[in-house]
């Protein structure tokens, strides 16, 4: 076969490709966000009708809510909220409307809307630009929440989100925007929402990763392999719903689990995974559950304070060693 089936590109380019492909595929897909037309002029969305690319005033609550109204009347809006902390301004329509309009109307409406939010942590932006807020939305029935960790998954999950008939929040790790990887060029390539991905098979310890922590866990697994510790590495990819089957299957092979989640400790994604393990996998555990997470402090500005707060290769290695 001579046809090129994948291309090496950045995580950010993979997200852009997903949007261009879906906007070309379905004329009901529109995009709303601040400064959007600037990128459209640069060709970011391909050659499409300007009516479908909306540069909104700085009114996150308003346009996040309008996207719900547009979604229930036949469009499939992508709302680009840019920095993830801005999702708080938009969270009333996301939670009170998007998540439950289908249910509250007895199924009269579907709400096919996508909210994109980029988590700008570890870049000295201080506490109002550095949040990883996906756990808050895991507590909202009716939503689906994905956190892609590779360029391939970025493309496949964003496309799946756009095609999904339910509201989906796509939390991007901004630290990954420049990371490169092979991305399928098939315009119908999607990654199913709710399915974890095993990146490495092993027998001694399970590492479950959320969002950008995958790259640290892969390096930690290399380090641990040198010591003869074999890691089974599962990247969750979707945090709502959680692929509990994949987690428990892996735990069944290893009997030990370390959960790596860049969100804050209390009620983070790791907390829910730990609860699933405690309820449904207790008999499989040979050692206590370990979490590698961000402590419960606001994110500080100074890099010397900020950097050590997040999960790291070293912290993951230490957590695994503590279980051996």
């Amino acid at each position, binding site marked *: 076969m001579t046809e090129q089936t994948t291309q090496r590109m950045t995580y950010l380019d993979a997200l852009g490709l997903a949007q261009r492909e879906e906007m070309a595929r379905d004329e009901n897909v529109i995009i709303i966000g601040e400064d959007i037309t600037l990128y459209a002029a640069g060709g970011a969305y391909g050659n499409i009708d300007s009516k479908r690319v*909306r540069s909104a005033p700085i009114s996150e609550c308003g346009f*996040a809510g309008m996207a*719900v*109204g*547009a979604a229930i009347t036949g469009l499939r809006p992508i709302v680009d909220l840019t920095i993830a902390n801005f999702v708080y301004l938009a969270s009333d329509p996301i939670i009170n409307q998007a998540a439950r309009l289908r249910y509250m109307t007895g199924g009269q*409406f579907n709400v096919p809307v996508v909210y994109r939010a980029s988590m700008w942590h570890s870049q000295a932006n201080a506490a109002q630009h550095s949040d990883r807020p996906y756990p808050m939305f895991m507590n909202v029935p009716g939503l689906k929440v994905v956190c892609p960790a590779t360029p391939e998954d970025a493309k496949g999950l964003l496309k799946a989100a756009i095609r*999904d008939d*339910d509201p989906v929040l796509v939390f991007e790790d901004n630290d990954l925007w420049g990371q490169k990887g092979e991305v399928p060029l098939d315009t119908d390539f999607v990654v199913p929402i709710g399915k974890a991905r095993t990146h490495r098979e092993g027998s001694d310890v399970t590492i479950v990763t959320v969002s950008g922590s995958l790259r640290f866990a892969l390096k930690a697994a290399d380090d641990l392999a040198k010591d003869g510790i074999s890691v089974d590495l599962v990247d969750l990819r979707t945090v709502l719903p959680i*692929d509990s089957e994949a987690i428990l299957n892996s735990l069944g092979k290893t009997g030990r689990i370390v959960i790596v989640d860049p969100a804050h400790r209390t009620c983070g994604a790791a907390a829910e995974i730990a609860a699933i393990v405690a309820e449904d996998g207790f008999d499989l555990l040979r050692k206590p559950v370990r979490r590698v997470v961000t402590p419960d402090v606001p994110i500080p500005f100074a890099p010397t304070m900020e950097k050590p707060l997040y999960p790291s290769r070293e912290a993951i290695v230490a957590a695994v060693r503590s279980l051996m």
Partner: protein
Amino acid sequence: MLRNDIDREAYLRMCKIRGFEEAVTALITEGEVPGACHSSVGQEAAIVGACMALRNDDYVSGTHRSHGHPIGKGAALKPLMAEILGKATGVCKGRGGSMHLTDKSVGSIGESAIVGGGIPIATGAALTAQVKGTDQVALTFFGDGASNEGVLAECLNMAAVWKLPVIFFCENNGYAAVTPARDSHGQPDVARRADGYGVPGVVVDGQDMDAVLAATRTAVARARAGEGPTLIEAKTYRFDEHCVGLFIKGGYRTQEEVQFFMNERDPLKLFRQVMLDRGHGEDDINAVEAEARGLVAEAVQFAKDSPYPEPEAAFELVHATPLATPIRR
């Protein structure tokens, strides 16, 4: 529609709202209604005048005071009443209740118990109409209380910038729950806020069906022509308390004021007289009233006879695309 037919249809819808609300109030007394209900009695002319300017395929969103809007838009009464009683045959299958009546079949795209929550929904529906190139319009009902929510300012501005076919329709009944508008509005006319966004703002007598219909028609014509939104403020009055059965100790409005509106400014009495003045016969008007009574009675019977949803139904209709991992019981 001919003038006589418009009068008749408008009066029928007003009588249906009045009768429906009176029946709901009676059912509350009987203990048949779970949760809270907010009656539209007194505001029928504002609701019906606005809806009569719309087509069936135009969109309407609304508020917690939710019964009148879908009825005004032409919804069948039986599924609405069943919904209020929490029945499986309810228009929202028992998942919404009194504050969230929605009937897609008549363009009723949702009532919201989040004050101001329906405003961006209708603005977004107008965006759909514009992107798809249909000539539909959207109208959002909101109260004087919601006019102080930031989302109104955001949506007025976006609708103005994008010339969206949306009508912002404020039912100003003078009270946000029990707080008088005079205590929470720097500018007593909500409509004047439109000036700040380059949008026409119109104040209209909300007890006068003809006046509301005329103002809304102008706004609809402007919206369909691609000229953008209008803010209409209908000055109206709520006869009942904020919530049916709510007892407010101390009082926030006088009985004289309430009695004045009920006696002198009742929109049904006023429009009945308009019809008589226009030559409608007493018998014809009585027949309209009887038709409304009959429809309400059938709706009550249907709702009472309908089954409650099974507990297990709570797990249905959460998602359009079922989850890969089912919801845990």
